[in-house]
């Protein structure tokens, strides 16, 4: 919402500087986004009168003029051909500046001295169409006597400041100059000067000219009209043009300009029909018919549907309600009689229609905020008054007004104490009453009730009044306190702690945290080689996504991780380790019947000088952090389509699968343009969170020495070492404290098809020192088991 300060000041006598003004308005709730000093770039452009015009001796297209600027006569050479002696024109003097950083200096044009420049409206920053009486091409010629030598800026409204406001959606009344002026008056404790509206009507009766009818009062709570006879289309007066132009609306003619003027001033859009073009002299407000077509004022044919509201005459639509009028009923030079519409439409319907048609206008922009139906007659009368005053037509007596369910004012009771309690203030009841009256509420301090004006549809309960009181009292004056209240303990939940520890353990292992989008393309499922019936394909789809690439909520963090790795790989970043705590979204059924399962998964990915065991080590370290190492098993996993079938382990925690770790299938990597081995691990955190505990218990440190024995074994290569370890654990008994695999070797000196595996076993008894014989016995037992059940031989 852009408002010229000069226009605003017609309704509220402000005398502060602009900085003070915008700060105060922002603090009272009418936020100023920016302001622009019009014509700030224009300096030293004055009114001059052409005294004489002579041809240039050396140039056919140039003339030499003498210009009277009041204090002196200047010789100026110009190429303009629309000027005559006696014309009054804008003159840019020597040393003047124009929009776009142009500087005018005196000099010689083809040998003749020129002391400035005669200006067109373009040179003053306008388009020719902005100024109705400006020539298409050429110097602007003032149509009235102006003091010679005076600044031209006031004439064009270029001495104004235009302020841009951010109006919040609860204040449709402030989408008008009067609305903002009302706020300004309340802010600065000035009187609010509402325009005096009086209409001079003729003796005739409007009922003899037209009828109106609303078929859908839900979408059109009120429709009113006046009739104007003997219409004379002319340009509007300069003052009106200046206001419109500064507000961003181009002046057209008196009737159009008056409707726009009233819309800006009061916030109520109006529309003028040529009454002679309305079949049956009738207005019917009805829903459009399905597929009904209609040519709007911009000469575009629109196809309507039954949800849209139109203004029709006896036969056809003549306007799309609240959005745009029709070509078939528009006011032209020849129009004799007008029907002037002032109506109230349902904001939501206007907004939806406007969106469906892709047609947003100044009028629809106002209506969609939801206007006060009680504004309708005021605005209609204001327009009629201006039409009559400006000699644009004769107002026929009476108003057609259909308003079946008038909006009634509300009564709100309040309690000053409770308002102070909410705000934490000690504002006196008198001050509260004063503030409420300043915003035009009726207040009964005895009964403690407030009747807000009907245009303040946002004032419904005491808390709403509290806000009004607070913002005019000043948010900055509310004492800043710290709540005492009932103490609460701020701490993270178990889940949050585990997640935090997960981040820490990953970062400690050299992983950088990444963030990826929660939704992705359904093509991802193909890239990951998922068969058609794979459960991960059961992603939740967004009905109105930004595009196919953002249409499915992820069911696995894989794609996000691979994409991040791909970005890095293709930017030639060597050796990358990334992790993400990624939420996945698993539907319990599709379409959704209940909230889906949102699970946080730890995903990590890496490439560089690494192999499977580096990746597995990351997982082991992760579980060690939560003291879960002994509860985790790694089981060879050949069936994940996106993983290398021989280099992937499923991770089992207490027998339950919680994730996997391994190498990505080269076919998948190709989709991501990665030409390097990539290792990935995924762990479902909710399952880990369930098992992880922060409880620790202490075991006394050993008092007796341990005995260590090494075991070098020759094993068939297909036997996983885990099998050997199970045997060691099983047969090692209570005295086996720990063991460690310290070497696995294949190659020279090892029988083909075999591997050499070496363990170090540590035995200890809590109560005493062990004897050689005891250990020998256990070692024999272990070896025997290995030999008989796994065909393992002791290495010589």
């Amino acid at each position, binding site marked *: 919402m852009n408002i010229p300060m000069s226009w605003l000041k017609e309704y509220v006598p402000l005398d502060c500087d602009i900085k003070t003004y915008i700060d105060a308005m922002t603090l009272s709730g009418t936020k100023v986004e920016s302001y622009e000093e019009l014509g700030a770039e224009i300096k030293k452009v004055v009114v001059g009168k052409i005294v004489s015009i002579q041809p240039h001796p050396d140039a056919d297209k140039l003339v030499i003029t003498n210009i009277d600027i009041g204090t002196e006569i200047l010789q100026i050479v110009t190429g303009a051909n629309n000027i005559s002696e006696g014309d009054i024109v804008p003159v840019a003097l020597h040393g003047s500046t124009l929009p776009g950083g142009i500087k005018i200096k005196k000099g010689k044009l083809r040998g003749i001295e020129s002391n400035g420049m005669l200006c067109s409206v373009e040179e003053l920053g306008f388009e020719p169409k902005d100024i109705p009486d400006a020539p298409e091409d050429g110097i602007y010629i003032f149509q009235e006597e102006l003091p010679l030598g005076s600044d031209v800026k006031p004439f064009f409204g270029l001495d104004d400041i235009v302020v841009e406001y951010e109006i919040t959606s609860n204040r449709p009344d402030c989408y008008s100059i009067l609305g903002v002026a009302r706020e300004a008056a309340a802010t600065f404790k000035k009187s609010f000067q509402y325009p005096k509206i009086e209409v001079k009507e003729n003796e005739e009766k409007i009922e003899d000219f037209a009828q109106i009818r609303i078929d859908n009062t839900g979408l059109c709570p009120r429709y009113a009209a006046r009739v104007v006879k003997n219409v004379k289309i002319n340009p509007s007066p300069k003052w009106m043009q200046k206001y419109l132009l500064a507000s961003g609306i181009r002046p057209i003619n008196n009737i159009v300009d008056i409707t726009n003027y009233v819309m800006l001033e009061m916030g109520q859009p109006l529309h003028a029909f040529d009454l002679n073009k309305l079949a049956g002299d009738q207005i019917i407000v009805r829903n459009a018919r399905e597929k009904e077509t209609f040519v709007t004022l911009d000469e575009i044919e629109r196809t309507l549907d039954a949800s849209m509201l139109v203004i029709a005459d006896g036969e056809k639509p003549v306007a799309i309600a609240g959005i745009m009028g029709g070509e078939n009923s528009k006011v032209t030079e020849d129009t004799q009689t007008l029907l002037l519409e002032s109506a109230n439409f349902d904001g939501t319907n206007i907004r939806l229609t406007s969106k469906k048609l892709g047609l947003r206008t100044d009028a629809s922009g106002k209506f969609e905020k939801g206007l006060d139906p009680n504004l309708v007659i005021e605005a209609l009368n204001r327009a009629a008054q201006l039409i009559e005053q400006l000699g644009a037509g004769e107002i026929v007596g009476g108003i057609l007004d259909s308003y079946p369910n008038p909006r009634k004012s509300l009564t709100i009771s309040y309690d000053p104490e409770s308002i102070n309690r909410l705000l934490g203030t000690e504002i006196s009841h008198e001050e509260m009453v004063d503030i409420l009256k300043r915003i035009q509420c009726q207040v009964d301090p005895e009964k403690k009730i407030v009747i807000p004006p009907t245009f303040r549809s946002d004032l419904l309960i005491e808390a709403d009044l509290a806000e009004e009181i607070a913002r005019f009292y000043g948010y900055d004056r509310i004492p800043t306190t710290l709540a005492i209240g009932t103490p609460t303990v701020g701490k993270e939940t178990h889940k949050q702690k585990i997640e935090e520890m997960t981040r820490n353990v990953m970062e400690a292992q050299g992983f950088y945290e990444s963030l990826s989008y929660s939704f992705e393309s359904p093509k991802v499922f193909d890239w990951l080689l998922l068969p058609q019936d794979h459960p991960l394909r059961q992603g939740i789809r967004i009905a*109105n996504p930004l595009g196919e690439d953002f249409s499915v909520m992820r069911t696995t963090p894989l794609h996000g991780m691979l994409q991040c790795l791909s970005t890095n790989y293709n930017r030639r970043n060597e050796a990358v380790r990334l992790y993400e705590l990624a939420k996945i979204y698993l539907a319990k059924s599709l379409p959704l019947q209940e909230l889906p399962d949102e699970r946080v998964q730890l995903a990590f990915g890496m490439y560089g000088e690494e192999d499977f065991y580096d990746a597995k080590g990351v997982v082991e370290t992760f579980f060690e952090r939560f003291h879960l190492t002994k509860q985790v098993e790694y089981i060879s996993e050949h069936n994940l389509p996106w993983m290398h079938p021989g280099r992937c382990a499923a991770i089992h925690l207490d027998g339950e699968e919680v994730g996997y770790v391994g190498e990505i299938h080269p076919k998948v990597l190709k989709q991501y343009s990665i030409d390097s081995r990539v290792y990935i691990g995924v762990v479902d955190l909710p399952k880990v969170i369930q098992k992880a505990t922060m409880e620790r218990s202490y075991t006394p440190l050993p008092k007796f020495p341990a005995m260590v024995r090494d075991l070098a074994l020759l094993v068939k290569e297909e036997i996983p070492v885990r099998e050997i370890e199970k045997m060691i654990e099983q047969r090692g008994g209570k005295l086996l404290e720990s063991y460690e695999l310290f070497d696995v070797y294949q190659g020279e000196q090892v029988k083909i098809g075999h591997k050499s595996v070496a363990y170090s076993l540590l035995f200890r008894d809590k109560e005493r020192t062990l004897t050689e014989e005891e250990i020998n016995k256990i070692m024999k037992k272990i070896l025997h088991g290995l030999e008989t059940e796994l065909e393992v031989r002791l290495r010589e």
Partner: protein
Amino acid sequence: MRERLQQIQQKAIAAFTEVQDLKALDEIRVKYLGKKGELTQVLRGMKDVSSEERPVIGQLANEVRNTLETQLEEVKQILTEKAQEAKLKQEVIDVTIPGRKKSLGHRHPMHIVLDEIKDIFLGMGYEIAEGPEIEEDYYNFEALNIPANHPAKDEQDTFYISGDFLLRTQTSPVQVRVMEKKQPPIRIIAPGRVYRSDEVDATHSPVFHQIEGLVVDKNVTMGDLKGALAVFAKELFGQNAEVKFRPHHFPFTEPSAEMDVSCFMCGGKGCRVCKGSGWIEILGCGMVHPRVLEMVGIDPKEYSGFAFGMGLERIALQRYGIEDLRLLYENDIRFLKQF
């Protein structure tokens, strides 16, 4: 005999003073004190000494031995130290060669900011609440007093799934879920992902993060809201940070406000970051709307509260001077390493 002993002592001491290394010292020890050493040889000759002289010579011999042994120890210690010094000298290395290190990963810049904010509120007695990202219309809109015809509900702004399910457009629904489950006193913050139908560009992302805050208790005032957020701002932006509250509108708070913080780049003088205003808009806030309390069954006559919400990306971008939001979701390691 006596002369012999004195001679040995003199010779040995002379040898000690000349000896250069431990090996030579040991040779000297063997030569004089060893089993076949000269001193031992002499002592073997004791049997030829007369019985009167024997104690005297014996004592002398012991004295010589003691003297030599003491001397030997001293020289040995000196030489050992010398040898060690020499060894250390040989072991000099170039300490400016970079060390072998385990690489350390970094947290995402947005999470760093989030962690800071969490810490501040945890310290003020707030808990961290979480809620679903795929949300029901009721929690995202209706229970927050957002009318059914509100423009925010349009398809242009909100991602819809099906039926009443949508991607939450704000973290505010967590307020409602918390209040439904818990009676006051409530002090929570709720960080998380939110979704809006904005095309990706330098300042927009369809996925972004918000932090919601909610306090409900007896006698909570707007002054308390100002106080809590002023403390927060000073903790996050520095003790010189000033805050300013401007009236605003949110359907679920009344009175509502927006909070600006004095620009942490220029300190309020006006610069590129604050677009010359000296202030940066940080969050929206207000007193919880009585309707919102009523809908979750909390009596607004007995309890009051305040709520606030802020965008995390904005704060992170401004904090680190990052000019393009897309960098946050690209995860280029060269970017991530900077935090």
